[in-house]
């Protein structure tokens, strides 16, 4: 006798998959954009900053609609991706991950950028006088020192991802087993008579998942922080 019903397991595992994929795929881009915003000056920096932050202030439906227009099978990017690489985001779980990634991206970039601005550049200079090239300095000094920020950004983006609703339902619809993540399943249950009990269970599951992510993030951040301050 399982604790969770097959439907709940399906929604939960789909949510986790979508969350993990979206976070893993946006991590390198997040790091690159954070680095650009924190360390470089270039024309259009304010514009880039604005675009990155848009999903934070726009109604999620707008983001979903924009994704549908751009990444749909006939959209300018979607058509190109399908013709060249055979990838499509339309109405499948990869599309749900894309929507989650876009929605979580500003949170990830913000945390990383703040962490990067706090990294002591004099330590990077010291590393270079010790014979380390730019990339080695970045990997062995910069990234470890911004560890807590990377962790926070990742967890925030993941949490945002598993609670994503508006952009996902607009972009890839609500397809059981394909795009029906926890919030979408919960929404579906509230639309049918007699679904309250099941909805309650899913709501409790969402709370548990979010709490677990927050606790894990706090625990890990403390450990990383202790390590980079040399106290472990």
């Amino acid at each position, binding site marked *: 006798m399982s604790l969770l019903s097959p439907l709940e397991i399906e929604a939960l595992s789909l949510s986790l998959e979508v969350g993990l994929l979206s976070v893993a795929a946006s991590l390198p881009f997040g790091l690159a954009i954070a680095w650009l915003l924190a360390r470089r000056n270039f024309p259009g920096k304010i514009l880039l900053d604005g675009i990155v932050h848009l999903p934070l202030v726009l109604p999620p439906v707008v983001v979903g609609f924009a994704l549908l227009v751009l990444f749909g099978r006939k959209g300018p990017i979607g058509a190109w991706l399908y013709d060249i690489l055979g990838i499509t985001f339309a109405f499948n779980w990869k599309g749900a991950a894309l929507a989650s990634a876009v929605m979580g991206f500003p949170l990830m970039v913000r945390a990383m950028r703040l962490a990067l601005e706090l990294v*002591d550049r*004099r*330590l990077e*200079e*010291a*590393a*270079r*006088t*010790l*014979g*380390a*090239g730019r990339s080695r300095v970045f990997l*062995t*000094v910069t990234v*470890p*020192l911004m*560890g807590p920020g990377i962790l926070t950004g990742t967890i925030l983006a993941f949490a945002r991802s598993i609670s994503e609703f508006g952009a996902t339902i607009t972009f890839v619809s609500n397809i059981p087993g394909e795009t029906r993540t926890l919030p979408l399943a919960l929404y579906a249950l509230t639309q049918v008579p007699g679904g309250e009990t099941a909805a309650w269970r899913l709501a409790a599951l969402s709370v548990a998942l979010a709490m677990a992510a927050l606790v894990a993030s706090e625990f890990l951040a403390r450990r990383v922080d202790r*390590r*980079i*301050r*040399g*106290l*472990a």
Partner: protein
Amino acid sequence: MIAVEARKRLGSFSLDVRFSAPSTGITALYGRSGAGKTTVVNMLAGLVRPDEGRISVGDAVLFSSHEHVDLPPERRRLGYVFQEARLFPHYSVRGNLRYGAPRRPRQRLITFDSVVSLLALAPLLDRPIAALSGGEKQRVAIGRALLAEPRLLLMDEPLASLDTPRKAEILPFIERLRDELRLPIIYVTHAMAEIVRLADALVLMADGMVAAAGSVEDVTSRLELAPLTGLAEAGAVIRTTLAGHDMTFGLSELAFPGGRLRVSHVTLPLGTPLRVRVRARDVALATTRPTGISIRNVFPARIVEMASAQAPLVDVRLDIGTPEQPVALWSRITQRAAQELGLEVGRAVFALLKAVALDRGSYGQFEPAAGDFRDDEAG
């Protein structure tokens, strides 16, 4: 030979330096804060790019605006010990030390074990950086720079952030770098005591320019540079040899061409070459040999030069050496005294120096070059 020629504008500050330093021993870069010392060292390290100029260490050209050379810091092979250690907090002491060490060591002289023993780092190896004292951090920073096998070590006021006991803890280690590893060092400081103790050559900087460069003795004996070396610090540096100990009174004798300096006991073997800094304000003058006086250091001297220092004061440059080997000494007295005694260039006088005016900070060992004065009695 380390040759630096560099120009750079930084806002309203402009730097224009040209000097060369020997490829052995310690060359001190001295000047007030804001003189541009750190900028020069950063240019050597590749952290600051000159607008134009040429920087070379031995055969290696590190920067040349003319030849379009600008090696990145990681390819210059210069060790840099910063004022604030700059250790990596996310590595242990061992991790910091190993950070710059090449996978295939080039030199046999600088090995991990030798650096650990030279700097007494063994008890610290597995400690986190946060658990180190200021002096320990600086020792680790020196070791980390050494293990990168630099061809030249840059030290930017490595003792400035330490208190006096910590300074005393680090100084012997820097002497060992100079004497045992024979590593050329560019040493930025604004403490004359450190220069006397460590440096052989001195580059004096003021307002972004090199005011003088040469041996420590030569530069410090030049009267016109007194305003730059600072009022309290002004003085001459004399090369001596530890020639005798007087155990009864706990005194030591330092021989120089033309005489002997009696000072408080110096615990070093006889024959040790010692550089002594005698501050101008600690030297008094008399026109006749004084009697019934506590001062044991009375030297016949000749006035070489007189220059008015600040308002009521006058700096008198003396020669207390022999005709073949002049030895410069300074005295700072009031203009009134100079007038009443009728002091003038060429006049024979007696220079008086209290032994207690010299302390540990007044001495530095040095490597005597061929032809340097040696006292026969020292054996």
